[in-house]
């Protein structure tokens, strides 16, 4: 299994220079993309598709903060277990309920500005958690797993809000 950080020749850490990641990604795709192998043998075309697929997958994982944190923990042998472990501290549960209620209110009131405000709130929350996880991955990786689960939750709320806005706009 190829290490995604090694694939892009980047240091294995949460803080990444996104401009360097983008540049490395483009350089790799410029070499391995199926468009460069249109006239090659079927064996080479297959290799190209697999490698370009891997490069895309690695890029997506490293680009998104939540998946990047999850991947860093996975490399340390720590599973974030987001599907099964839904236990959350009380204050986070309370906040969750408030966000869901705000969403429901906006749904009934068809209140798109309220949803945009909620999205902004999610971005603020996510930023704080990302800073937290950056430290935890180095200093306390087992705690980082909980923070990744929280981030995953925030991402999910953002996705749902976006979907709701799209529905209301139609």
């Amino acid at each position, binding site marked *: 299994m190829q290490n995604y950080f090694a*694939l892009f020749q980047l240091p294995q850490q949460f803080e990444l220079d996104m401009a360097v990641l983008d540049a490395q990604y483009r350089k790799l*795709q410029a070499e391995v993309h199926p*468009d460069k192998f*249109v*006239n090659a*043998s*079927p064996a080479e075309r297959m290799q*190209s598709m697999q490698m370009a697929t891997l490069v895309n997958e690695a890029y997506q994982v490293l680009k998104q903060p939540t998946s990047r944190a999850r991947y860093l923990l996975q490399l340390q042998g720590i599973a974030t277990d987001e599907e099964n472990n839904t236990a959350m501290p009380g204050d986070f549960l309370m906040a969750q309920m408030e966000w869901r209620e705000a969403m429901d209110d906006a749904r009934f009131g068809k209140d798109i500005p309220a949803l945009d405000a909620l999205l902004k709130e999610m971005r603020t929350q996510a930023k704080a958690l990302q800073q937290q996880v950056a430290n935890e991955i180095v200093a306390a990786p087992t705690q980082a797993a909980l923070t990744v689960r929280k981030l995953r939750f925030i991402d999910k709320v953002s996705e749902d809000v976006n979907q709701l806005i*799209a529905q209301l706009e139609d």
Partner: protein
Amino acid sequence: MALLQISEPGLSPAPHQHKLAVGIDLGTTNSLVATVRSGMSTVLHDEHGHALLPSVVRYLQDAVIVGHEAQAAQSLDPVNTIVSVKRFMGRALHDITDRAHIPYHFVENDSSQGILEIKTRAGLKSPVEISAEILKTLKARAEKALGGELTGAVITVPAYFDDAQRQATKDAARLAGLHVLRLLNEPTAAAVAYGLDNAAEGVYVIYDLGGGTFDISILRLSKGVFEVLATNGDSALGGDDFDHRIFCWVLDQVRSKTKDFKPLSEEDTRLLLTKARQAKEWLTDNHEANIVCKLSNGALVDETLSVAQFVALTEHLVIKTLSPTRKAMRDAGLSIDEIKGVVLVGGATRMPHIRHAVQAFFEQEPLTNLDPDKVVALGAAIQANVLAGNRSGDELLLLDITPLSLGLETMGGLVEKVIPRNSTLPIARAQDFTTYKDGQTAMAIHVVQGERELVSDCRSLARFELRGIPPMAAGAARIRVTFQVDADGLLSVSAREQTNSVEANITVKPSYGLNEDQITSMLKDSFGAAESDKAARMLREAVVDAQRLIEAIQAALAEDGDTLLSADERQQIQTHIDALLALCQGTDSHAVKQASDALNHATEDFAAKRMDASVQKALAGKNLDSLEL
């Protein structure tokens, strides 16, 4: 049959010879072919100087007419003159909702899962066959203009085309005898033509309203890299719908003035639709249009349509394009002020009220300095030229995405999404499933495409069964299903039981597409009657493929054979090449195919080593750059 030239091993004929490659815009209303000549992308004209080939096919008893002549006959012979066939690609009969206003005799082909066919005087014709006639005409035009056989073609499709529609387009190209280098999304093609022409950098929106399809794509352009960020659209919305609104309006007017108005004949329907299209085009530069014609029952139509009336009639269609636009912007996570430019593509964007709506939405004047009818073909030609290998060391790289999410049916008719829309291609995703009954040994897998939660609201792409699951307790089996979408946006699916490693490798053919046998039989039909001709054609195709393979491998050996292979490994590959070359002199097409497969198989390790070397090279280059800085 022409004799094939096969060079000595290691001596490819004229390696830097310019390859004849074209870009084809297979449009709903018009189609075009373009090529790069002396570094310039240019549209190829027919002998009368026409660039646009109307996408109209007329079937006579023993002949097929394509283009202007067919278009001129559409009111006289509507049943056998097929226009806008693109709307029917990859579609079943029940998908065509406005059948009442289309003068064709549709037939449901029960042998291929509801694929629709059209009854003409020359027999039943599928949309794939009809499209192939248009492609054949463009191929002939290009080969005449360029003076040789085409190496390959890039064919454009709407970005919002689903898997079935893409597959149908590829089938049509194959039927027309074209080697498809790539299926390219129309807005991406337009971005290539526009971006390279204007040395554009930044985020651009392509608003593409064609005859029958609407696409919106948002791209980031940077140093020859065209990265599609989001795409959305409506594969059943286009200029035709505007014609149709005028048609319905005229019909209402005539109806209200005529006692005992009888339903229109097929000829009259086509005549009025043509008049409606002409009125629409006239209103681009004029305040009102007169619609005057005589119907076959003697009734006279004489109506005047003002711009204001036309705008009112079609406002809802314009609004219908803005909803996908908003969604694409949201998916890309961008705000209006981050958009550097908006490029208009498609003849329908000539309508002033479309331009005004786009301008109001993006708060900037849209860019129209390239002909909206030609820009897609011009971009496709540039990509074809690069893919054919005429511009080596080129910086052009297109990173396209999936327009629609792909998923699997789960319990209760719900969709489990596996690949989300707007994922960069190529992409693969695996999803694990389990059994729900004790001792269950088979599992049905249903692949769907779309954004909705219910299977019934999505498009069904394929159904297949995974058999041979070892009997286990319910929930104990782990079946991993892998979706792979290639650079053409076409899907293949494989499934594997993890504990037993039973693999069922299935190439997913869309439910509404043609199967391999149908394609083969259509190809054979097109070869001509005599058995010997068919055999000769099969052999010729096999030898051309073998030659292409040998050329590719010899090029790879020349590049990396010395550094990546031992003398022994190299000799093994050479032995396979020699064997294949010998068979190419013979007459056994099956043996040629087998030896080609064997040669390809023998180079798999070499291919893997070369790929690793490419990855190293890509980033080593970066280190050199940073040293220079």
